[in-house]
Each structure stands twice: as C-alpha cells, then as structure tokens.
C-alpha cells in the first residue's frame, strides 16, 4: 500500500491547513501484505526518500518488511533526482539528469511495493524507546507549518537524509542573486527557473560542473566556472579513477556540455568579491595559491547578474548525532556517520546510507540503500544475511567510496581562504555577525572553537542552526591550525514550534499510545 500512489504535487496549502492529504492517514487494519496492524510499529522507518532512502525502503519491503518512508518533500527523488511537480507537465524531466532510468526504476518499485510513503514529513527528532523501538517525530506540511505533528514508530531506523551545501563567506555573498550552487540546481530542477541570465558558478567540488552544465543547457549564459582547487589530485589516485568508469563518464558528459556552451573553467581561483548594491552586478575573480590564499593583484572583474556558489557538501547527520551515533572525520574536513560493513551505525538498530556516511553521489547512495534494506530485512526476519547476497553490493560500495574519498580530499578548503574575508563580511547570514566581530572574540576573548564563538557573538544561533556559517566559524576559530569539523550537533533537525514541544510534555508514552503510529500528537 502506498500512501502517495500518485505523488501528491501539493502538500499543505498554508500553515493553518491540516497536514498533507495522504500522509497523516492511517494504514488500513491490518495492512494486507505485511500483516502489520495499524496500531503496531512499522518494521522499518526510513528518513529521506532520495536515492539511498528509496532503494532501502523498496529493498526492505520487497523482502517482506512493513516500511514507512518519510520525507519533507512532496516528491521522491531527493537532491539528485529532484524534478518538477506533475502540474508543470515536464515531458522530458530526464533532460536535467544523468541516469534518470535508475530513478524511474526505483519509483516503479516504490509504487509496486507496500511502502507507506509519507510526504511532507519533516523529522525533527528520533528517539529510542525503552522497549528498543524507535519513534520518529515529524512536523508536517510543505514547510512543516501544518498543525498536525506526527509520530511514527518502528523496530528499525534507516537514516538517508542526504547532505547540505557547504558555504564559505566572501564580501558580498549576502547580496540577492548570490545563491547556492546546489540551490540553483534544485530551483531549476523543481521550479524550472533561473536566478539570472548570466550566472557565474564558483566554489569547489564536482557539483559545480554539473550545475554549470544544467544552467547553460537551460539557457543561462555562464561566463565562468571558478574552481578553487585543481583537478590534479584526482590524477594522483589513478586506480580509484580507473575503477569508477561511470563517474569518469559523468564528468566527461559535463565537460562536453561546457565546451558546447563555451563555458571557460578557471582552476585555482575564487570569487573574492561580489559587486552591486541591491543585487549582483559583477564579481571579482582572483587567483589562489596552493593554500587557497588569494594572490594580490590578480583580481579580474566579470559582469554577471547572479552567482551560484558552493564548496562541497556536508552530511546531514544531526538526527543520528543526537542519539549518540559515532562520527568519523572525512578527508574534506566534514563529519559523516561511522558505519560498519553492513551500514549499521554505532547505535544498534540505526542504519544509515547515502551522503550521511560521507558524500559520494547518487549511485553510491542507491547501492548503500539497497544493501541496508536487505541487511535490515535479514536481521528483523531472523535470517542473517547470507554473505553472497550482499557481497556484490558491498564490493561496489567500497569501490565508489574509494573514489568519493579521492574527490573529497581534492576539494578540501585550503586554510588560506580566510584571506578574502574583509572584517565587515557577514559570516553568519541569519544573525548578521561580521568576520571582524568573530576575529575580535578570538583575539580578545580567546575563543578557540565554534561553540565559544557562538556564545560570544551569536554566530550560528539563527534559524539555520549554523548550517551556513559552521565551516567558516570553525576555520576562523582554529586560527590556521586544522579546524575541528563542526559537530553537527543540533537539538532538533528542524526548528520546532514551542507548542509542539509543549504538547509532547505529558503526552502518553508513544510505545503504548493508543493512537495509531501516524496520528498527530494530541495538542
């Protein structure tokens, strides 16, 4: 049974509307194909319906588990397979995607499966109950504003929440027209819009090439792709490259598109200033030395009306960190979840797949999701996974992970980037905290880590909970030595209305709650 058989294009109309139409419904009693009673926990809750979560949910369901697949979005696909809502009538959505058929296949399996796909569910916390089951707490509606918070219970949990884009601030980055590179891609893929006519793409990481090629194919002029790293370091690990021909092919496709659209790529360079008063009019691009320090006198002005910028991706792991999962430092200075050979985290019963374990792309995410789904089914059904059944998946995963590590090391920000920060550049976009104030807190008050800087300056205390400024603050606080990766510690994965928290207080223990697992929390 699929709650959203025809993916709803439309979640809650406004904050006052009740939750997404399909998603807060309860399952029939008992659910036919798995025999789950409506008031019983699911076998598995999957958070995130991107490549990893979709693959995990369908694999587990096909092996006989009852599965709820939760995602904040109204559609499946995650970041990579983000696509226009049905009402936009896209006849060739694949024009904006590499490997669309892999997604079409997952979607077909989802619709044929008994997975309950709960759209418009923003999970803000997961809790392990005393009886060992898990409860996922979610806000509902397009932006989580619907008055119908939900609790979904399950025996096992698969976190496939993907990543968010890493940002490094520079003078002018808060001007309208400066947008995330992945953000521009997401807005294009879902809304079929561009932030401008002439868009410079800058930052670091392989995503930049994909973004530039999509923007150019969609009609934007791309005066330059500006990459802070070089691609030389890829060459130092030829084995990882040679064993990942699909990745190499993907890069070639993007490179060919850039040549076709005459997009110049500038390596070892960065946008060091954005010009304009109320919106972007031009950017200055400067050469960088090996440490990413801008080289004086190399600045060149490029006219444009938008800038799409990003410096790689950060695994989105706060739900897991909050329940004590062990993390590991990744080669690019971010944190991912530490997972065993079968995708399980250090907390028994909590598995993860895709970017949560380290950024590596949609195909790796799909492979890990499939693996996790099979392993969880074997565990819950008491049939330990036969090694043969997962060996192929594990081999493919290891091969792609090795490539991901090379990629991530090649694009790790060099310590010299803070050289392009002027004291009046806002580092924290939410609380408008300029670099000068952070430097002062470090120099005068001896702040040495992001947490202390936050307490002294409010940097990282705004709505985004430090997602946009976390890397920058950690770098500034480390004053040149290797920065501690931001801890990805947030009390809640999404901001939660106080009324929802208050309603939890004194509500019955969910494990024994008489309401069905997807019923709203009484308020």
């Amino acid at each position, binding site marked *: 049974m699929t709650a959203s058989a025809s993916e709803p294009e439309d979640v809650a109309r406004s*904050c006052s509307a009740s939750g997404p139409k399909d998603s807060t419904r309860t399952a029939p009693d008992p659910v036919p194909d798995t025999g789950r009673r409506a008031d019983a926990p699911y076998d598995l809750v999957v958070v995130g319906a991107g490549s990893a979560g979709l693959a995990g949910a369908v694999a587990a369901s096909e092996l006989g588990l009852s599965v709820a697949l939760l995602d904040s979005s109204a559609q499946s696909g995650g970041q990579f397979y983000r696509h226009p809502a049905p009402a936009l009538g896209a006849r060739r959505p694949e024009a*904006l995607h590499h490997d669309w058929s892999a997604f079409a296949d997952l979607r077909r399996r989802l619709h044929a499966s008994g997975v309950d796909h709960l759209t418009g569910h923003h999970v803000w916390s997961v809790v392990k109950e005393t009886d060992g089951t898990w409860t996922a707490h979610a806000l509902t509606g397009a*932006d989580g504003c619907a008055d119908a918070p939900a609790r979904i219970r399950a025996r096992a949990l698969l976190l496939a929440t993907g990543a968010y884009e890493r940002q490094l601030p520079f003078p002018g980055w808060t001007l309208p027209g400066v947008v995330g590179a992945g953000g521009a891609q997401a807005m294009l893929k879902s809304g079929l819009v561009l932030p401008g006519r002439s868009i410079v793409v800058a930052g670091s990481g392989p995503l930049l090439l994909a973004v530039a090629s999509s923007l150019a194919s969609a009609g934007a002029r791309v005066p330059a792709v500006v990459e802070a790293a070089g691609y030389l370091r890829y060459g130092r690990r030829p084995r990882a490259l040679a064993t990942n021909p699909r990745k190499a092919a993907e890069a070639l496709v993007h490179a060919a598109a850039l040549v076709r659209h005459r997009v110049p790529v500038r390596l070892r360079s960065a946008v060091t200033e954005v010009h304009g008063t109320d919106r972007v009019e031009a950017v200055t691009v400067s050469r960088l030395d090996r440490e990413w320090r801008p080289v004086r006198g190399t600045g060149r002005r490029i006219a444009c009306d938008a800038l799409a910028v990003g410096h790689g991706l950060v695994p989105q792991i706060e739900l897991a960190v909050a329940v004590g999962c062990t993390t590991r430092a990744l080669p690019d200075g971010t944190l991912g979840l530490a997972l065993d050979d079968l995708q399980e985290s250090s907390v028994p019963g909590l598995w993860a797949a895709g970017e949560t374990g380290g950024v590596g792309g949609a195909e790796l995410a799909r492979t890990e999701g499939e693996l996790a789904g099979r392993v969880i089914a074997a565990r819950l059904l008491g049939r330990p996974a036969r090694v043969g059944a997962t060996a192929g998946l594990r081999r493919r995963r290891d091969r792609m992970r090795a490539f991901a590590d090379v990629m991530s090391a090649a694009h790790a920000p060099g310590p010299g980037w803070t050289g392009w920060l002027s004291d009046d550049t806002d580092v924290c976009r939410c609380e408008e905290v300029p670099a000068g104030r952070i430097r002062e807190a470090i120099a005068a008050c001896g702040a040495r880590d992001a947490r202390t800087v936050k307490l002294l300056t409010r940097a990282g205390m705004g709505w985004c909970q430090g997602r946009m400024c976390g890397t920058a603050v950690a770098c500034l606080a480390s004053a040149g030595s290797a920065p501690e990766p931001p801890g990805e510690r947030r009390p809640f994965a999404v901001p*939660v*209305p106080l009324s929802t928290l208050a309603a939890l207080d004194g509500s019955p223990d969910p494990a024994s709650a008489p309401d069905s697992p997807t019923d709203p929390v009484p308020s």
Partner: protein
Amino acid sequence: MARTPIGLVGAQPDPPFEITFDGRPVPALPGQTLAAALWGAGILAWRTTRDGGRPRGAFCGIGQCYDCLATVNGEPNRRACLVPAHPGDTITTQEGHGHDRLGV
C-alpha cells in the same frame, strides 16, 4: 529560439495564475513554489534583515538556510522555497525574522 528551462524539459504546464508580491501581480505556474514564481518574475529579494535592513531571498533553495522567509497571506516566517504557490496568494516583504515561536 532562446533556450529556456521550460523548453529544455519539454514542459506543457497547466495555465498560469496570478499571485501578488507587495501588491504587484506576479504570474505563477501550477506546481511552482512561491520562490520559483518570484524568480521567474526576476524578483530575488522578499525579506529585509533585522539589523541591517538588507534585502534577502532564496539562497539554499532546499529549505535549510531560512533566508527565503516571507509573509504569505498574512502569515510570517514561511519558507518560500518550500511553499507551493496557489492562485491569489499574497506575498509581502518580511522585515527581519524572530524565533519567538520556535525552540531552535
């Protein structure tokens, strides 16, 4: 003919409808978010910051930066990059943002 996103994916959307931004009519396509409709009309800013009064709009595009907060049909703090557009929606520039309702 100039290349466009709509042309690229061969989209044949249902007919557009109207929303308003600070009183001015803006066309939207069914299935677009408010932020997409605004970008489509060349509008990139619909919030001013609390301290500096600086203009802001969508930045991350996926619901994580909260820079795109707008007042929608009188209700503040809606993430325009997530909320789907509906005929007659009124968007007004939001000044600053508070977290009074939230336990962040």
